[in-house]
């Protein structure tokens, strides 16, 4: 024990005269670091309630609780965080698809009531709401993959020369890579009219089990290859991955799954339940809704017959959709399965009034989904001139193999998918095409992708143009006269803005054909008076209850006639609804609405 070692420690007393390390109690409100992981904040307006945060939370500290009514693409749920479990790892923030979730740099929170330590950030007001600092998502680090695997497509210059499919389709690697981007939030399921099992089949594709994927797909869609190619894909519109990145290519993945198999019957083994044995159902109209009803009733043991006026089933998807989007073999594949499921198919047969009455007698239930087969007219002077044709007629004639002439230049009036299809078909027939649309580009009901494809193919778009009249010129061409429009706000919030004609200006367009595609309507001439009187509304639609049944007990309806969106997937959804309704009606003899 040397003296040095006895004395040296006394140096410690030096510290007694320096500033202490600790800070007084009143200073404990030291702010956290700029990216401190403190209490959560959530921008509830930005949040869509996808639940990815709850999925990734390894402590299960996050519950998704309902806080508002779901709107489009929003589950109405918001994360509620239990701070008894939270470990402040901030994975929830990093995985957040919208970037709405963040963490404040708040250290302390004192609360007497332990229940309050479970709160919904952004809904339950807290002092740190709106905190500028704290942990946020940052460029360069993402737990989800934001970029989509690009879909190979034909070059626009090439594709206008041919009727070949524009979209080439994913390879197995590409599809599995794309499928692996899914976060399984399920917002798409809610958005899909048919509520297809999207995360499930995407998961099966990701795992490489394509049979299982097809099984999931066929559970509630008997025309998946059609949907995989031409669906309006509302699912992708709400896809949570698409909020900050590109949405999952849900449609292409479905397409991929269906394209893996030549014959669906070989892989699908729907369990035929004999619940409907002995019950007969007639289906009038072989469109998507009719096919849906027929297929799912058939696999439940019902005896189903489809009556179709055209030579092929498929309805609008057969005669309306051009082959470069939806080739015939794809349709035939699906119809084949229908036949193998035991559905009797009568094509080229238009049901008329008396036969309808007879079918009503002979069958336990009747479903009709005859669609919107007739075009609405332009309603302007000169419409009856030769050369003014209707897009529906053009497409139908083209698909059943009739020769169609469009001349060198055409103007297509309308902005829906029908208008785009007619334009692109005309383009492939060799015409210069102009689309005249009354509203703005962003208001067009057609798919964005379709519009872009059309423009890529050299189709000109003239928006805010109101057709005034059509005149015949001396050189045999038509003079399409239109006036410019200004936009006035819609009547109700969320409605379409209205175009209003600016009077006094007239523009002229010389064309060979004016193709009208402003809208379609149903026709009811084939229907017995007494039935039509009961089921048809004053707007030309058919009203059904939640089981798909019309005012006439035993008659069910679906498809474009019934729903307001007029797309194939909604028709399939109608069909699914009617399947349940018909089963209930025929087996239990009652309907929900009447009970």
């Amino acid at each position, binding site marked *: 024990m040397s003296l040095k070692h006895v004395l040296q*420690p*006394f140096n*410690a*007393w030096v*510290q*007694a005269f*320096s500033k*202490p*390390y*600790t*800070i*007084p109690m009143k200073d404990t409100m030291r702010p956290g670091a700029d990216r401190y992981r403190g209490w959560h904040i959530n921008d509830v307006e930005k949040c869509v309630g996808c639940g990815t945060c709850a999925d990734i939370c390894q402590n299960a500290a996050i519950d998704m609780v309902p806080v508002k009514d779901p709107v489009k693409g929003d589950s109405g749920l918001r994360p509620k965080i239990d701070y008894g479990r939270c470990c402040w790892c901030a994975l929830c923030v990093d995985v957040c698809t919208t970037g709405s979730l963040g963490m404040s740099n708040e250290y302390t929170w004192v609360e007497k009531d332990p229940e309050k330590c479970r709160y919904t950030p952004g809904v339950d007001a807290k002092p740190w709401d709106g905190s500028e600092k704290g942990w946020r998502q940052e460029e360069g680090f993402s737990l989800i993959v934001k970029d989509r695997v690009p879909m190979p497509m034909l070059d626009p210059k090439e594709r206008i020369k041919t009727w070949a499919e524009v979209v080439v389709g994913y390879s197995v690697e590409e599809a599995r890579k794309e499928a692996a981007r899914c976060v399984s939030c399920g917002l798409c399921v809610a958005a899909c009219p048919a509520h297809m099992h999207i995360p499930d089949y995407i998961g099966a594709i990701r795992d490489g089990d394509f049979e299982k994927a097809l099984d999931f797909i066929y559970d509630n869609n008997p025309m998946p290859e059609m949907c995989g190619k031409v669906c309006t894909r509302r699912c992708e519109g709400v896809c949570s991955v698409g909020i900050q990145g590109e949405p999952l290519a849900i449609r292409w993945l479905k397409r991929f799954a269906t394209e893996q198999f030549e014959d669906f019957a070989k892989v699908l083994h729907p369990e035929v339940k004999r619940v409907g044995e002995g019950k007969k159902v007639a289906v009038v109209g072989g469109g998507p809704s009719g096919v849906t009803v027929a297929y799912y009733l058939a696999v439940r043991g019902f005896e189903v017959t489809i009556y179709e006026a055209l030579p092929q089933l498929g309805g609008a998807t057969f005669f309306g959709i051009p082959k470069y989007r939806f080739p015939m073999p794809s349709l035939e594949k699906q119809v084949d399965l229908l036949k193998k499921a035991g559905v009797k198919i009568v094509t080229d047969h238009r049901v008329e009034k008396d036969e309808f009455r007879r079918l009503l007698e002979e069958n336990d239930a009747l479903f009709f989904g005859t669609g919107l087969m007739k075009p609405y007219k332009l309603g302007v002077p000169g419409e009856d001139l030769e050369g003014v044709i209707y897009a529906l007629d053009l497409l139908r004639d083209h698909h059943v193999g009739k020769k169609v002439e469009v001349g060198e230049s055409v103007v297509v009036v309308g902005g829906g998918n029908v208008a785009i299809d007619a334009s692109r078909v005309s383009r492939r027939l060799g015409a210069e095409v102009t689309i005249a649309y009354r509203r703005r580009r962003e208001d067009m009901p057609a798919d964005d992708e379709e519009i872009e494809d059309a423009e890529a193919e050299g189709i000109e778009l003239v928006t805010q143009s109101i057709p005034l009249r059509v005149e015949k010129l001396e050189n045999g061409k038509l003079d399409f006269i239109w006036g410019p429009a200004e936009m006035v706000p819609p009547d109700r919030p969320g409605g379409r803005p209205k175009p209003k004609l600016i009077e006094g200006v007239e523009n002229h367009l010389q064309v060979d054909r004016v193709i009208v595609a402003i809208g379609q309507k149903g026709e009811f001439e084939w229907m017995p008076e007494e039935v039509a009187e009961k089921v048809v509304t004053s707007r030309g639609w058919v009203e059904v209850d939640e089981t798909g049944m019309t005012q006439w007990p035993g008659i069910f309806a679906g498809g474009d006639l019934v729903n307001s969106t007029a797309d194939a997937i909604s028709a399939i959804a109608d069909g699914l609804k009617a399947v349940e309704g018909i089963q209930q009606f025929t087996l239990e003899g009652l309907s929900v609405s009447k009970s």
Partner: protein
Amino acid sequence: MSPSELSLLPKLFWVVVSVVGAIAYGLVIGGIIRKVMARIQGRIGPPVYQPYLDLFKVIFQRTATWHGYMFYLGPVFRAAGAIGLFLLIPVVFGDPRFDNFSFNGDLLMVMYFMFFGCLGMALGAAEGGHPHSVVAITRGLSQMTAYELPFSLAVVAIAAQTGSFSVHQIVAAQQGGVGHWFLFTNPLAAVAAFLAFLGMNMYSPFDIVLAPQEIPIGPPTEYNSAFMSAMMSGRAIFGVAKCVLYMDLFLGGATTILAAIVKVFFIYFWSIFVGAVFPRFRTEQAVRFFLGWPTAAGVAAVLAVMLF
């Protein structure tokens, strides 16, 4: 003025006052020490009145254990020993109010009382049955026997120098200036006694009784509530009493309360000054320490008095 000048009742009154004052001051010293300790450790530390808060907190707590009467008498013995010790030493020399019960030969009694408190504590804590208490007590008694030796030698040296075992007379012998203090007139005895004081006050490196890292707090492990408060106030008054004794023995006593307060504080602070910067000795190291240099100094002091 002599002690006999006050009749019994006023005397009792002043005794109570001085005991309460000693406890209060002991607690304040405790608070100051905690604050100083905190500063050397780089902390702000608790407020000076923190020991009061602690004391009142434990007073109002209830106990739910039962370890036998002896166990609960432990703190009482300790407090009694401390108070007994305190009452035998004159706090303010020449003031009948704070003269306490000093009498001829009281120094022997003082030595006894210093031991008494610890023994009582030992008996009580052992009754608790907690092995930590037992270990702590064996350690404490070993250390106590060790530091008793230099302390006793120092006391003997001083008694021999004064020719009396009365604290009163020892104080009286030192009056007349700083130079008359035994601290300076008998430095060897002072060294022995002040080194022994380190062990007596049980701060590092001699805190082997409490030794939180080894035998968590030792005897107080099992004590709680009012017993804890008895221990705390006992410790407060014991600390003050020891310092008063040292003051009387080596620093010439005190003639005013203020002088007593200042001197007591500095004597107490001595153990902190050392304790704050050293780790703890092991038991046998502590024993060996006291039997080394301090004892040698004590023996030297006695020899010096004998010889010169």
